[in-house]
């Protein structure tokens, strides 16, 4: 569960998030909105890369804002980026191991978790392939595998479907949908792909100019007139 209370972020004179309050409880929660609505800023506040001017964020009874970014990751807040962050000269296994390095598990357990996330993401045969040789879908999957290796409580995915084909998006959809069941983590998903959001998010929040204009069951949100006007083009 993530509780956001009166969160405000300003960049100079621009209010990227404006007194945002939101309580996310479901297995997969979607966040949508037009460009510049504040979606990525929200994820950056949750992961500690942007400091809010005011407000509070409580996740599973922990004050997230009191923790440093790396401490949030070690606590169980995993995230991916809009542009997949893959090191060209490091293998898929290295990318996953870096998350395991801070779990302080015995080596046998590391191997078990590594094997499990590789199998879940379908990357087992690419385990020793370096980042430079991965296609865009494999890069996305590697990031997701790294998120899952860190025993996450919450996984924040920032436009994971960007640049993927129809088939790859379908695979991604089934993977994200299975995260809660397989790994026990709540997923917060930002994406422009309305079909993807509709297919896997039980609840969805809509942001516009840093304000929450709708939050609730996904289908109900998409029928909301304000949402249609702001995001779906009437």
């Amino acid at each position, binding site marked *: 569960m993530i509780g956001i209370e009166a969160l405000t972020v300003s960049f100079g004179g621009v209010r990227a998030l404006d007194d945002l309050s939101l309580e996310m409880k479901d297995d997969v929660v979607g966040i949508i909105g037009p460009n510049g609505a504040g979606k990525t800023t929200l994820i950056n506040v949750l992961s500690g890369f942007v400091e809010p001017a005011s407000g509070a964020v409580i996740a599973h009874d922990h004050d997230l804002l009191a923790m440093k*970014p*790396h401490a949030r990751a070690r606590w169980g807040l995993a995230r991916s*980026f809009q542009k997949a*962050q893959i*090191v060209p*000269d*490091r293998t898929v296994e290295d990318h996953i191991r*870096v998350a395991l390095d801070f779990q302080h598990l015995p080596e046998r357990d590391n191997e078990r978790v590594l094997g499990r996330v590789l199998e879940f993401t379908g990357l087992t045969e690419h385990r020793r392939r370096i980042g430079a040789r991965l296609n865009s879908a494999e890069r996305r999957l590697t990031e997701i595998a790294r998120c899952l290796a*860190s025993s996450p409580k919450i996984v924040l995915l920032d436009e994971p479907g960007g640049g993927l084909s129809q088939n790859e998006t379908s695979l991604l959809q089934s993977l994200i949908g299975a995260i809660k069941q397989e790994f026990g983590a709540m997923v917060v998903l930002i994406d422009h792909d309305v079909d993807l959001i509709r297919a896997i998010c039980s609840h969805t929040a809509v942001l516009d100019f840093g304000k929450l204009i709708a939050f609730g069951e996904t289908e109900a949100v998409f029928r909301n007139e304000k949402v249609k006007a702001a995001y779906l083009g009437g």
Partner: protein
Amino acid sequence: MAKAFQLLFSRYTLVILACASASMLALPLVLGAIWVKVLTSVTIFAIAAAGTSLVYAQLRLVNLAQVALVGVGGWIMLRLNHGTAFPFEVSLLLSGAGAGLVGMLLAIPAMRMRGLYLALVTLMAAGAFQIIFTAFQFPNGGDGFWGVALQSPGEMRRPLLAPGDEAYLRYTIAVAAICFIIVHLHQETRSGRAWAMIRQSEANAMAAGVDVTVYKVRAFVLAGFLAGIAGGLLAGALKILDSRSFAAGESVLLFAVSVVGGVYGWLGAVIAGLLYRGVPALFNNLGQDADLSLIIFGAALLHAIITAERGLAGQIADAFDGLRRKREETQ
């Protein structure tokens, strides 16, 4: 445990050990007295270059104070030699540790700066050490904290295992091999993975749970440690140190030859050592001005930046790969 064993006896470390063993056996037998000293110096600066390369290759940060840290290591070694009865190896480790601590201080600006600004700050630090070394000189057995006397009354002790120049070259090569293996073990384990994530982006590293401050400091400490070890060995080789050897510009030169040699492995560091100390000695030997080597380094740096990002070591590795592929095709 099995993984640690696997790493320690990987192909990479075995190649280092094989090359080091061959050099220890052959070089002192085939080289004359002067070239034994030159090769000792080459090996010492290869250790220092490994530190410069580590920070650049792993974090893409430019540290232009490495030769100043070699001076710090040399100062500590001479101070301990003349002030204590510590065995050479203990003093050597303390020289590394002392320079590592100074390296840690250099990591402070690296928390907020990168690129040209960080390079300039480290160069200024090197300039500060140049002034300190010039003002206070290196200990030579005199009294007091600075330990400087007009006429050197003390003697720099060498390791019990290596009192003569040839044995000292072997000793230096052995220490260099250990240093290269230490660097490799860091690169292939948790530190190397964390550095790789930082290199990609600091946000990416933090999102993976990496404490960026700790791992940046670790890289600078390790680079400083290597410089300190190099300084300690240099003090043992030359017995007295001169402040003119540790001018700020020397660190720029060492960084440049490290890029030319290749920053991604031990071979690049060895080539950097050869360029830094071997080429000027060769010009001297041929009766030419050693500064001619600077022209060659400039051209080589251009070549490396434009066509060979992995340096001469990368080109050598590619040539071997090409030969291997050709042989496989003909079979």
